[in-house]
């Protein structure tokens, strides 16, 4: 971090000067006492700016979109409000004011970058929305927030907004990967490389769709800023990483990770993707005593993610073993499992996030479905879920006509703060 600081500072200054924000933001920066998170935000902004600066004008236009802080994370689903619920009023009005306003806003002039407009969020789905009061046509198997889209489907089926790595020069691609490296922890960055490697391995078998590294797409929503909210989305077939930045806060909920094949060989080395997620959870299960295990293990099969793409803002009734009933060692193990997701992001943001999760640990549930053992060196076939007041993790081996130990989807959400809503929506 300290190595990057001078570079970051220079980049930030260049960026600010070029966008004409120098006077305003410069003053703010000089008066605030920088925290580790503030410094990290500066690093991320600098790396993002460096990436943007590496692009041509046309590329730039394709990679950057307006950031819209939606009141609720809308998704490929029906609007509940239109179904007669009290909150939200008539939910239909979306489509009319969507495409017009917001595509016009689409970074025509960076100096006039729009502020987040929380109240007007619903209208921004653009062409994806269906009839009044409904979500997009049923074919859409992703989740949309403002103009950002992610999914557990290949990029060729559900296009992500932004630029695919395959369309970047080596230098530009390096800048994009460097940005991820700065934004994430070293462990998180490695995880993403492993996932991309798995998709690359899959694509080499000749998939009829776009799954390899070249299809991984990066999109920037809003203007990289140390004070105002903006968003970075990076994803491909088995990754949907949504990083929302808001001043000293960095949030990566919702994020989807996955792997197929879950075990592959790269440069003569065997890589098992999401291995820690699997192994640590089995270790926790086996550290439970008989009665605790009985509480944790559900008596039914869970064959898919419950809160996958399109389920933003839903909090399902929790089940399983409450962490309040666990001993200290088990609780530590549970936190360790959680850190596999919460720790994808850089430590400066992960530390407060873990503290928040720890604070709600008593009310956090661990639920399991499937066998209690797994073959060493392989992922298991068991589904598990960790659900707390500010947390939802699902680990779901996919049995879709194949070997579930080789194919997994996972989901990481914060029902109270997906897309950093808690930090971006209080200005209305």
């Amino acid at each position, binding site marked *: 971090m300290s190595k990057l600081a001078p570079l970051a500072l220079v980049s930030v200054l260049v960026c600010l000067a070029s966008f004409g924000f120098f006077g305003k933001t410069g003053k703010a920066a000089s008066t605030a006492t920088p925290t580790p998170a503030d410094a990290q935000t500066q690093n991320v902004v600098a790396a993002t700016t460096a990436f943007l600066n590496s692009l041509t004008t046309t590329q730039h236009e394709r990679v950057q979109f307006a950031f819209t802080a939606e009141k609720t994370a809308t998704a490929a689903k029906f609007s509940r409000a239109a179904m007669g619920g009290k909150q939200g009023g008539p939910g239909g009005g979306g489509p009319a004011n969507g495409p017009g306003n917001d595509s016009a806003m689409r970074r025509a002039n960076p100096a006039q970058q729009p502020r987040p407009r929380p109240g007007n969020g619903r209208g921004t789905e653009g062409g994806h929305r*269906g009839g009044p009061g409904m979500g997009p046509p049923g*074919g859409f*198997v992703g989740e949309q927030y403002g103009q950002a889209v992610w999914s557990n489907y290949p990029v060729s089926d559900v296009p992500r907004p932004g630029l695919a790595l395959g369309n970047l020069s080596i230098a530009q691609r390096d800048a994009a990967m460097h940005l991820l490296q700065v934004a994430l922890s070293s462990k998180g960055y490695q995880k993403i490389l492993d996932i991309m490697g798995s998709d690359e*391995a899959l694509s080499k078998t000749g998939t009829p769709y776009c799954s390899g590294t070249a299809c991984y797409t990066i999109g920037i929503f809003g203007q990289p800023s140390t004070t105002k909210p903006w968003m970075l989305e990076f994803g491909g077939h088995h990754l949907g990483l949504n990083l929302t930045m808001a001043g000293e806060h960095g949030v990566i909920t919702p994020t989807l990770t996955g792997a197929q094949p879950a075990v592959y060989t790269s440069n003569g080395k065997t890589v098992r993707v999401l291995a820690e997620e699997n192994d640590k959870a089995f270790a926790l299960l086996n550290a439970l005593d008989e009665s605790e295990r009985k509480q944790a293990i559900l008596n039914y099969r869970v064959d898919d993610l419950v809160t996958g793409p399109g389920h933003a803002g839903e*909090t399902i009734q929790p089940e399983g073993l409450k962490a309040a009933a666990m001993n200290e060692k088990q609780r530590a193990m549970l936190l360790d499992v959680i850190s596999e997701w919460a720790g994808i992001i850089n430590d400066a943001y992960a530390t407060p996030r873990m503290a928040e999760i720890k604070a709600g640990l008593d009310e956090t549930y661990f639920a399991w479905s499937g066998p209690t053992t797994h073959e060493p060196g392989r992922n298991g076939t068991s589904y598990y879920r960790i659900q707390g007041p500010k947390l939802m993790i699902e680990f779901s081996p996919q049995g879709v006509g194949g070997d579930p130990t080789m194919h997994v989807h996972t989901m990481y959400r914060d029902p109270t703060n997906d897309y950093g809503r808690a930090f971006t929506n209080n200005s209305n």
Partner: protein
Amino acid sequence: MKTRLSTLIAILSLGLPVFAHRLDEYLQAMIVSVEQGRIQVSMRLIPGVAVSSAVIAAVDSNGDGAFSEAEQQTYAQEVLGDLRLSVDGHALKPRLRGVSFPAPADMKEGLGEIHIEFDADLRAGGPHRTLVIENHHEPRMSVYLMNSLVPQDPNIRVTAQNRNQNQSYFRLDYAQADPQQNSFLSLWRSRLVTRLAAFEGVPSMFRLGMRHIAEGTDHLLFLIALLLPAPLLAVRSHWAGAGSIRQSVVQVVRVVSAFTIGHSATLALGAWGLVSLPSRVVEVLIAFSILVSAVHALRPLFPGREPAIAAGFGLVHGLAFATTLGNLGVGPWQRVASILGFNLGIETMQLVVVISILPSLIILSRTAAYTVFRLGGALLAGFASLGWIIERLFGGPDFVDGFVDCIAQRGVWIAISLLVISIVLWLRRHAQSNRGIFSEQPSDQTLEGI
């Protein structure tokens, strides 16, 4: 090369061609949200590649390669028909709220999600309730997920969840903490608000109004308490024998019309947002009006002034809904049309109830048994209303609702048996009087009440 080979081996070990998404299953995921008096369900149906042709064929009944609006509706109704929903053992009727289908081409690729949204009304119930959902749609190729959202209403708390192994059966036990919230009136209020917000048109509101009376125990009880003494003449502080049939009918018509006018007045005012009273006050007042009517059926409190009193009570009953209609999203005229439809439904059903029990009352009032019947009915209504008053004031146990509900559910049978009994009793009395002195006049003297 080695990398690639081992990757291939790893992948071939799957035993099947590699696809990224659902392959040979039809995923059906259901999310339920439980509210006071209603459940909302959101269903997502995702056919995998191997089964998508079967699903496409099922939807596209005319085989033209497109999903028409009618085909979508039909398929969604079929899905709903394959569900079994119940609360506390009573079957629920799902009401389709919305559908959305992918393009057939996307669905063929295993990329399509069908969305179906529906809801269902729940009858009023006790503090502990059990919701059961079974999904029998395409059992041979499907994978099921069923979950409940954490209820938005803080008064509803899920106490247990049970599923069978493949989640085609889901049982949700929940507690409704506040009996006040669980009362019949609040249930109907939320129902009315929901329908108004959705603006489903006047006919739908008309049916809702009819249902309100058919299920509305306190309304029915009030009506019956009012009607009990209607065929009788008050003599000083006692109910004497029956008046003429004409007198009885006129009296009933006056009472019912007066009530209707009062009821309509406050409902209309409420629709315009001009009146509003705390709902607890209104609910207690309604219970009190039943108590007064019951006492009046025991001993005349306001002989000859029944229509005026009925109009006053009508005003109070109308307030029960007026309190919540003020600030709904629909336009004022839509609201008024809806209210009018609802009100017409109420009046129609009221008329049905009156017509079905009035003959019995008139016949019965010419027999000795009427005194017993009147006293019994009045005491029943009196105790029920006392129970309601206590319950609504202090939030006590809601045994009254359950008890009265139990009677009201058998309303049709009670009305029929009442008619049969009254005819039998009247024939017997007629036979007796024929055997004795031939008298044209019914011997009213024997019917003197207390």
